[in-house]
């Protein structure tokens, strides 16, 4: 089973974990992406995520379906936040349950990498010096449907 959600509310991690419990599974791997207090040498005070939800949900579900096909896993869920987030809050959570650990680790890595590269989600950082900036994901340059005439990026940031 797979489920993908965009949430405007704080992610309930206990509930998220409980939704993945499965007696046929011996392994459970999660990834949480947290709001970090610095990026590219600048002090970050807070973040806001803008999401185009209709396409984000469609593409998110497609990624989870790909993970189910590629790896021997039983359950995979992911939730991504939108709106303003406080320091250290989870911005994204991926959870994978499977019979054995190897597939769960690999699938979890696959899902978070694809989510960061493909979903129509944008992150705005608010810095301590009063400046703000939309952050460019380093993976966007090789995403499948980039504008092939305009994909060379400079100064991309590790996100």
């Amino acid at each position, binding site marked *: 089973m797979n489920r993908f959600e965009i949430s405007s509310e704080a992610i309930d991690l206990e509930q998220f974990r409980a939704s993945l419990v499965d007696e046929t599974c011996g392994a459970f791997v999660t990834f949480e*992406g947290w709001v970090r207090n610095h990026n590219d040498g600048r002090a970050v005070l807070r973040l806001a*995520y*803008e999401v*185009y939800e*209709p*396409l984000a949900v*469609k*593409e998110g579900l497609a990624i989870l379906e790909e993970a189910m096909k590629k790896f021997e896993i039983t359950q995979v869920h992911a939730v*991504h936040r939108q709106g303003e987030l406080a320091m250290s809050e989870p*911005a*994204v959570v991926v959870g994978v349950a499977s019979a054995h650990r190897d597939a769960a680790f690999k699938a979890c890595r696959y899902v*978070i990498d694809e*989510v*960061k*590269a*493909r*979903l*129509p*989600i*944008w*992150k*705005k950082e608010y810095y301590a010096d009063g400046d703000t900036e*939309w*952050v*460019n*994901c380093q993976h*966007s*340059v090789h*995403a499948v*449907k*980039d*504008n*092939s*005439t*305009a*994909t*060379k*990026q400079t100064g991309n940031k590790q*996100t």
Partner: protein
Amino acid sequence: MKLQIHWFAAFREATGHSKESVGSEAATVSELFEEMKTRHPALASARGAKVAINDELADWNSTLKDGDKILFFPPVAGG
């Protein structure tokens, strides 16, 4: 033909619009984006954009038809 263009994140701030109706005879999405760079000079430095037509991710060579909803996405940064 008449098109509805939606701008997101950095593109919304560069154009000053979240959406706008435009008349265009652009043959492809790529041509339309070039037209928009003329209309909104702040888009000139746009790199790594993606496009969706009527909520489906699309190729830059896709053709347009009257009434299409065109979504221009700046480089994404989820997670």
